[in-house]
């Protein structure tokens, strides 16, 4: 099982709302090429895209790491942004700290983290105020 790990790293550029989502788009194409089940591709793409958008909106970008082995897809989105002061609150649907200009762009509805939770099989968030946030999304290749 080991030895078949595939990894990729992507930069999530700061302050570039128009380009945001390129990493998720690349990963989605890669998974399609690898022949991953379409529902699993969709779950991965949506979770990663929400996390990528969060890094752009709240943290001046960061980086995305992708790791695929025979059992799972693991995506780590790391940023050095402000961190999340109240993670329980942030997990609630509709709660958002995004500024108005982000809301005008169709984001900041307080659905990002809830959507990640909805679509990922495992969601791990490590966050420290003033230091940054790492979101780990796991999607199993064999769905129960």
């Amino acid at each position, binding site marked *: 099982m080991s030895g078949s790990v595939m990894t990729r790293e992507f930069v999530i550029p700061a302050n570039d*709302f128009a*380009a945001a989502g390129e990493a998720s788009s690349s990963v989605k194409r890669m998974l399609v090429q690898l022949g991953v089940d379409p529902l699993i591709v*969709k779950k991965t793409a*949506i979770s990663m895209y*929400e996390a990528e958008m969060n890094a752009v909106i709240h943290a001046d970008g960061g980086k995305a790491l992708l790791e695929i082995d025979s059992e799972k897809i693991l995506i780590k989105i790391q940023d050095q942004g402000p961190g999340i002061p109240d993670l329980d609150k942030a997990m609630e649907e509709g709660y958002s700290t995004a500024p108005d200009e982000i809301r005008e*762009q*169709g984001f900041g509805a307080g659905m990002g983290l809830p959507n990640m939770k*909805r679509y990922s099989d495992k969601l791990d968030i490590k966050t420290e105020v003033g230091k940054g946030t790492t979101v780990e999304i796991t999607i199993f290749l064999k769905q129960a």
Partner: protein
Amino acid sequence: MKVREIIDILDAEILTGEENLDMEIKSACGADLMSDVMAYVKENVVLLTGLVNPQVIRTAEMMDISVVVFVRGKRPEKNIISLAEEAGMTILTTKHPMFIACGKLYSKGLQGRGVWD
């Protein structure tokens, strides 16, 4: 309902993606909030939106949504259309506002909705 019927019902103009005209659409989503779109999973969806930016196309791409209708006569810029082209999407624009556009499609039988969980 086929994409060409949607064009007819909405009196819409096609900006790219003529190859999808015979694609069968089973449900619709009308939203300006992209995270709301992503909370909604269903196959063969048309997205109606008043929001015009590249993230609309990105969101549709992640959701496997192949048809996007911009309402109230909004026309996306070239870079947005190119992004859609790359993803093999069909982009339409209609003069009708959101409520009327959704209502017209609904009354013609496009009533499928997504599942939230």
